[in-house]
């Protein structure tokens, strides 16, 4: 380990001001801080600080994503590995480029976007599309707003929305038949040209003229066609509950979202409870509810606002799914919610201030 520290120490002058590679200082600093805790000290009171930092905060999301990432490897094979790597590299390049231009630090928020993005794509999508999508998402969804912490929309969803609108055909025809048995597709590498199918996903089937519903158990375990990380409700619930326990995702968003979705679905499909449960498990609802809608940056910052925001997304998802030709509604619902978040905040901040009016 000493060797690594020495190596970094030796390389440091090259990246400092006046060094030959000083332009790449943000990249060096990110790697340096990734390996070894920086020695930065508090300058002002409080003199000691809580151990939580943004890196840790974001890595909790990655930990919570492990179950559904593993499920995606099981069902769709090793193809997930290059997809994740391409997503990290292409998106990371945009992130680094902006950090270098702005002379700012590289933000850890990208660690989450880079993993979430391939998980919401069809598993058979060509790798160049993954790259284009994530670059668009990071660029337009985040960097032009000023980087992590200042973005209005969830960057991963912006990227997916862009792919869906620009390459709708490919996005709808790149599904992979999920593997089964003990090892699933763990031993296989699915080729886009060979294994990709344009069969219908469960939600597509359910919206057909003669509806066909995939068995509940398949939806629960994830043995259906769908986006890489979205199919296994079991893995998503496991990770989502972890994220709620860590306190990184707010239950104030997740619970109203799920309740709002349930109530609206009951209103639209009638009292068939089995069908309501089916809708809970199908499509991107759970991944969106636990990992996308709860993104603290693009959701409201007020606690009350989170309730309204969650409920709004839940209701909008049910409406889009069941009352429009789009059979999957989570993505548009969350982007709509992101759009309303600042307004919701305004209202709840005004209420908060009103609540303080008697305090002198």
């Amino acid at each position, binding site marked *: 380990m000493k060797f690594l520290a020495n190596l970094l120490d030796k390389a440091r002058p090259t990246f400092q001001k006046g060094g030959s590679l000083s332009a790449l200082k943000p990249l060096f600093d990110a790697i340096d801080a990734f390996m070894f805790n920086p020695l930065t000290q508090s300058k002002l009171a409080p003199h000691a600080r809580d151990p939580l930092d943004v890196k840790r905060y974001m890595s909790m999301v990655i930990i919570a994503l492990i179950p559904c990432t593993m499920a995606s490897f099981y069902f769709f094979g090793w193809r997930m590995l290059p997809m994740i790597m391409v997503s990290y590299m292409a998106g990371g390049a945009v992130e680094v480029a902006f950090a270098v231009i702005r002379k700012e630090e590289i933000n850890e928020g990208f660690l989450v976007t880079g993993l979430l993005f391939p998980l919401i794509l069809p598993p058979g999508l060509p790798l160049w599309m993954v790259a284009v999508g994530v670059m668009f998402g990071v660029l337009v969804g985040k960097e032009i707003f000023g980087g*992590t*912490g200042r973005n209005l929309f969830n960057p991963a969803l912006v990227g997916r929305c862009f792919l869906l609108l620009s390459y709708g055909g490919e996005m709808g025809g790149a599904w992979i038949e999920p593997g089964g048995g003990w090892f699933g597709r763990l031993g296989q590498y699915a080729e886009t040209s060979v294994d990709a199918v344009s069969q219908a996903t469960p939600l597509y089937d359910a919206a057909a003229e003669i509806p066909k519903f995939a068995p509940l158990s398949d939806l629960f375990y994830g043995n259906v066609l769908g986006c890489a990380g979205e199919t296994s409700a079991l893995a998503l619930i496991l990770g989502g509950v972890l994220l709620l326990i860590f306190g990184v995702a707010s239950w104030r968003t997740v619970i109203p979202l799920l309740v709002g979705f349930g109530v609206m679905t009951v209103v639209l499909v009638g009292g068939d409870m089995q069908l309501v449960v089916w809708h809970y498990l199908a499509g991107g609802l759970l991944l969106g509810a636990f990992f996308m809608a709860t993104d603290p940056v693009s959701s409201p910052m007020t606690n009350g606002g989170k309730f309204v925001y969650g409920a709004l997304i839940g209701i909008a998802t049910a409406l889009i799914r069941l009352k429009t030709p789009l059979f999957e509604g989570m993505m548009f619902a969350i982007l709509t919610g992101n759009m309303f978040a600042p307004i919701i905040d305004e209202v709840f901040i005004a209420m908060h201030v009103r609540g303080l009016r008697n305090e002198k």
Partner: protein
Amino acid sequence: MKPRGGYNVNLIGGPSGVVEKLSPPEKLCIPLHSRHLKFSELRVADGDSVSSGQTLAVDPEAFSVPLLAPCGGTAGLSRLDGHIVIENLNCPPDPAPDPELPTHVPYDSGQAAEKRRKLLELGAWQFVSNARTHQVADPDGTPSAVIVSTVHLEPFVARGSAICTGSINELVRGLEHLQSLLEYQAIHLVLPNVKLELAQDIQKTIRGHAWLKLSEVPLQMRYPFDNQTLLARHLGLFTEGDETVWFIPAAGVIAFDRALTLNRPCTSRIISLAGPVVKDPLHLEVPVGYPIDKIIAGRLTQDDNVRVVNGGILTGTQITEDQAGIDTECSGLTVLETPTVREMFGWLRLGCDRRSFSKCFTSTLKKAFGENLSTSLRGERRPCVACGQCVTVCPAGIMPNAIHKYLFSDELEQAQRLRTDLCAECGLCSYICPSKIDLYDELVRAKVRIAEELGPPAEEPEEQAAQENQEEDVA
């Protein structure tokens, strides 16, 4: 108002109940300024010989609160910038306590004005602060209520129990003196858990003195519920917005007794010397101006790479070379290690040994424990990710993250609208921020700027009412 937010920062190295009296030093270096006081008006000249208890300087902006000489000697004004140095010390030892001294003093409200003047001259008045502004209270003013606190919760300022234990009689007599300064106002006595020996001792001594209008306030022992502004708010003493509430810590009440019963100046302080790198953390009774390097010499586990903080870790100020001695407002010295070793993949560790406000470390599964904290920022400065922890922890009920957003874009009016003025200056928002934003500093600065640039907030309800009246008139 119900208490909300708050968090107890646990770190190792809390001071024990021992109070050690230090022997007089070779010289005293008395700083001419402290957190709230600036003794700019000098009353002695360079080379003057001063006697114990003589006024060295006063603060003209704080009702001429004096800076008293703890010992006699030769005053030097130019030895050390911003200090009065007293050499050739002649420190008369405190006479042994008179066993004949009565436990109680009779009620006598006749000479309130003279008593207040005496308190001011003997250095006891500087403990009385305005609970809203934290500045020294006006000795001629009339408070609407008085809060006396025996609790200090910030790690690690001198504990109330260490100050009061052994001085219960002084405390009670001080309370009686205080009552005779007042007319009808009640004294709110803040006690730790009423089951504690200290609280019971105080109650036992007070009992049977019906003229002492005390209301006992058992305190929930969570930082910063001992904060004077928050206490006044929790007790419902701020309702109109212009009340004056006096706040006096237990040390101040004991100083009242010393000044009024014994006629002696209050020139020594009980401070704590604590922190993870202090060998035996304890309390010390020291005269004001005691050289700081003499206090810490030989008491630390390491001499290099340490930061000495004047006060607690959350709101204290770093002691730099500009300050050589204990100032008159000092409540403790906290010594922290400055880190020198970089931990590999620190952010990936399970974190059994890291106590956090969040639930992102496995230490969440353990009971509360003390942590070996250093001055490390433990992360890097990042933009706000709106995690909302500062809102949860804020004891004043404001939204530091939203205020930060407005201050970032320099919208001072919006920060005022979000009630930055309610900030109790506890430092918890900065402590827990994962983005390591100096929210505490931002809020304190914003408060000052709002008061200076914008003045008091506009009375919205009245404006609305006036507008409605106008509309009615038009109709």
